[in-house]
């Protein structure tokens, strides 16, 4: 049971980690993240990097959809903008790795503001459709602006270099991608302790009331779009260095749905949600592969059925969580925590 946690100051009450147990767990998590690459094999490291990239992008979408209440189905397109920005900067200007990733975020943020402009007049699902439209227009730009994007064949990206070390393997990239993602998640967590973050939440809860309270809607909605697409852009930049080739088909419309699904499965409007959701939605299809391999001797055709079964499981997971656990995985974690807080009393 959790006792003796009375707060004496507002600062203590607003802290990110308020109890000693939380701090201890955070240290354990940091240790696990640092030691993991020395234990895992190449395949699992590859997955870990992929999860980290997806977590970064999903956290960005959560700022927009979970906290500001603006539904967007354009996250993959913003990621693509970031990836192409990295490819262009790396190929044409040869600027350093970390600067490229940051610049990718800024370029994506600029595009995000542009896409967000209709958000003042258009609301709810109409806005979601407008972002679908924007992502298809961006896809058109990627295919046809051949001098920058290389058209359908795409562009290759040279391996990232940092302090003279070439980061080509997942092992090396892990030490860049995971810290960047951790930093971005931390920034998101802190955002909601500031005026800007609270303004986002006010807009989500009732935008007209927020305006009456003195929050300039256009400015804050655009800011939310910019932040969210900055996250997507950075994630896309990391993606470009990770896979080292960017084509218009790298970020299909289905990826946007994937991110929205990840945020919803994880839990809208929580910091933990997109982390759990992105990890879960990335790893389940991989686990399915093991199930299929395991079933191989029994059903010889199981391999051919893998792709449709993944599609079915993906859809079924979205439906299952929305119907039975609308608060997502974060709520399950909260329930477990509550159990230990109150133990030995019944929750």
């Amino acid at each position, binding site marked *: 049971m959790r006792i003796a946690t009375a707060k004496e100051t507002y600062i203590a009450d607003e802290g990110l980690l308020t109890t000693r147990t939380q701090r201890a767990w955070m240290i354990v998590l940091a240790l696990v993240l640092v030691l993991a690459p020395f234990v895992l094999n190449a395949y699992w490291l590859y997955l870990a990097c992929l999860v980290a990239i997806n977590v970064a992008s999903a956290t960005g979408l959560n700022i927009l959809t979970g906290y500001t209440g603006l539904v967007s189905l354009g996250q993959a397109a913003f990621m693509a903008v970031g990836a192409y920005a990295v490819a262009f900067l790396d190929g044409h200007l040869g600027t350093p790795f970390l600067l490229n990733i940051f610049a990718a975020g800024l370029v994506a943020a600029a595009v995000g503001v542009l896409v967000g402009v209709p958000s003042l007049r258009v609301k709810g699902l109409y806005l979601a459709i407008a972002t679908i*439209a924007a992502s298809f227009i961006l896809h058109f730009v990627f295919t046809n602006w051949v001098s920058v994007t290389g058209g359908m064949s795409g562009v290759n990206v040279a391996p990232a270099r940092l302090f003279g070390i070439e980061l080509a393997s997942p092992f090396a990239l892990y030490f860049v991608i995971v810290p960047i993602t951790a930093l971005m998640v931390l920034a998101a967590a802190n955002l909601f302790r500031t005026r800007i973050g609270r303004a986002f939440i006010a807009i989500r809860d009732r935008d007209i009331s927020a305006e009456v309270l003195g929050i300039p809607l256009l400015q804050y909605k655009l800011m939310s779009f910019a932040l969210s697409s900055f996250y997507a852009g950075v994630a896309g930049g990391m993606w470009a260095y990770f896979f080292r080739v960017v084509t218009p088909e790298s970020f299909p419309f289905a990826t946007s749905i994937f991110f929205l699904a990840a945020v919803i499965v994880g839990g809208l409007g929580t910091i933990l949600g997109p982390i759990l959701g992105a990890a879960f939605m990335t790893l389940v299809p991989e686990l399915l592969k093991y199930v299929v391999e395991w079933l191989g001797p029994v059903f010889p055709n199981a391999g051919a059925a893998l792709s449709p*079964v993944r599609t079915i499981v993906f859809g079924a997971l979205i439906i299952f969580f929305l119907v039975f656990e609308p608060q997502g995985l974060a709520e399950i974690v909260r329930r477990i925590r509550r159990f230990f807080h109150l133990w030995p009393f019944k929750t």
Partner: protein
Amino acid sequence: MDWLFFAEVTLAGLGSGALLALTALAFVLIYKATRVINLAVGEILMLGGYLFFAFSAGFGLPVWAAIPLAIAGGGVVGAMVERALIRPMLGEAPISVFMVTVGLGSVLMGAVELVWNTDPRALPDFMGATPVFIGEAYVSRKIAIGFAVAGVVIALFLLLFRFWRGGVALRATASDQAAAYSCGINVPGVFSLAWIVACATAAGAGILVGAIGGISPTMGVFGLSALVVVIIGGLDSVLGALVGGLLIGLVEAWAGTFLGGEFKLVTTFSLLIAALMIRPYGLFGTVEIERL
């Protein structure tokens, strides 16, 4: 400019526009009754095409039996989905219900791939191939038949909404659920009815679309075009679906022919954004007034 060619492109555009309008009707019906945007309409359309394929080519049924069976199959799917997935989600945020239909679309697509694999197929020909001439302009027979069927079905729907008891109940539910309840209208029944009719319509549209362009698990993309139509026309307006459908059909045909195939989607989506900026609730949609 060759005016005959232009006229032929325009006629083809009107033909596909009528199919878009028919599919858009499925969106409008469901949105009117239950305030849900059903993104799975495209996949139900695909399922309709595949059901027809299964009944006619697989079981060897004659066309006159396979068409009603495929349409009924779409209706059954609609009924099951409404009962099992949409009813429990009543009162949840619109985005949640929207995502449920996205998930449903994914499940349907996977299921179709599992049963019929991903190869594109041609539906058995049941319309004949002799071309139709309007004046001197050539129209493919399939597109002409598609246009005629879509026109008749939409006209039928307009009449039903106006005069049939169920249609009036649906309009009453759309305008005020609580008031409809207190007048003795069976609102849950209306919900089911709307989903059944809409999914049956989508399945029927799928047979027409499949007969013209062949069927494949990715033909659900057609639903996305129809979604553009309803957003431009207004989500709760049958008239909007009709006007928007013909408009988008024409624009797609013109853009595809005179600018090049890759401009088709980008033109329609640019049109969508322009329309939303000018009229956020579509051309004929009900403007929602927000109060504190």
